[in-house]
């Protein structure tokens, strides 16, 4: 993996996720952690953008510990825990947060 984008802040309250969505390339990963796991709920323009990104080969991941804390769920295939995030960071060429 070339680039790992980490999004930390709520996708409803902040617009910071847009830069990651804008810059991520095929093969890159965007991982939503902390309040940004709210991304599983929207907002709508993010949901549209997420489908687009996935069809372009960008991987989306959500941190399990942060989802569980907030009683939120993501598809199993896109859920990683802290161990998984540690591996993503090892594999990435660089991290943008």
């Amino acid at each position: 993996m070339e680039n790992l984008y980490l999004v930390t802040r709520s996708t409803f309250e902040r617009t910071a996720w847009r830069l990651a969505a804008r810059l991520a390339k095929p093969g890159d990963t965007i991982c939503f952690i902390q309040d940004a796991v709210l991304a599983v709920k929207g907002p709508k323009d993010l949901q549209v953008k997420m489908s687009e990104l996935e069809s372009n080969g960008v991987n989306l991941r959500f941190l399990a510990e942060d989802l569980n804390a907030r009683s939120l769920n993501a598809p199993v295939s896109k859920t990683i825990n802290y161990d998984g995030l540690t591996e993503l960071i090892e594999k990435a060429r660089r991290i943008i947060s």
Partner: protein
Amino acid sequence: MLRTGPYTSQNMDTCYHLARRFLIKGHEVKMFLYEDGVFNVKKEIKSPQERNIAEMMAELLDAGAEIKACGTCARFRGVKKADILEGTKLGGMTVLVNYLNACDRFLSFGF
């Protein structure tokens, strides 16, 4: 590089959970505390019935992490050398540059 303080933001916790795992895997971990990040190594932090951020920092130090805080940020925030955990140090931009030169992966946590 961590720019936020203890309790107020979850950033410090995320850093802790990641750093702990990297250390167990045998990686070197270095933390540069910038802006409010300097508050995370205040040894006087008392947190009855809650996780203690200063103890979490001390745990990382024991496990081999290197933790330095920006001296200018500390002065602006009234934090002195005597206030910070044993094993941590105040330093200048040289510290950040050395860390950037030495590391394979760099993570930045801000506001």
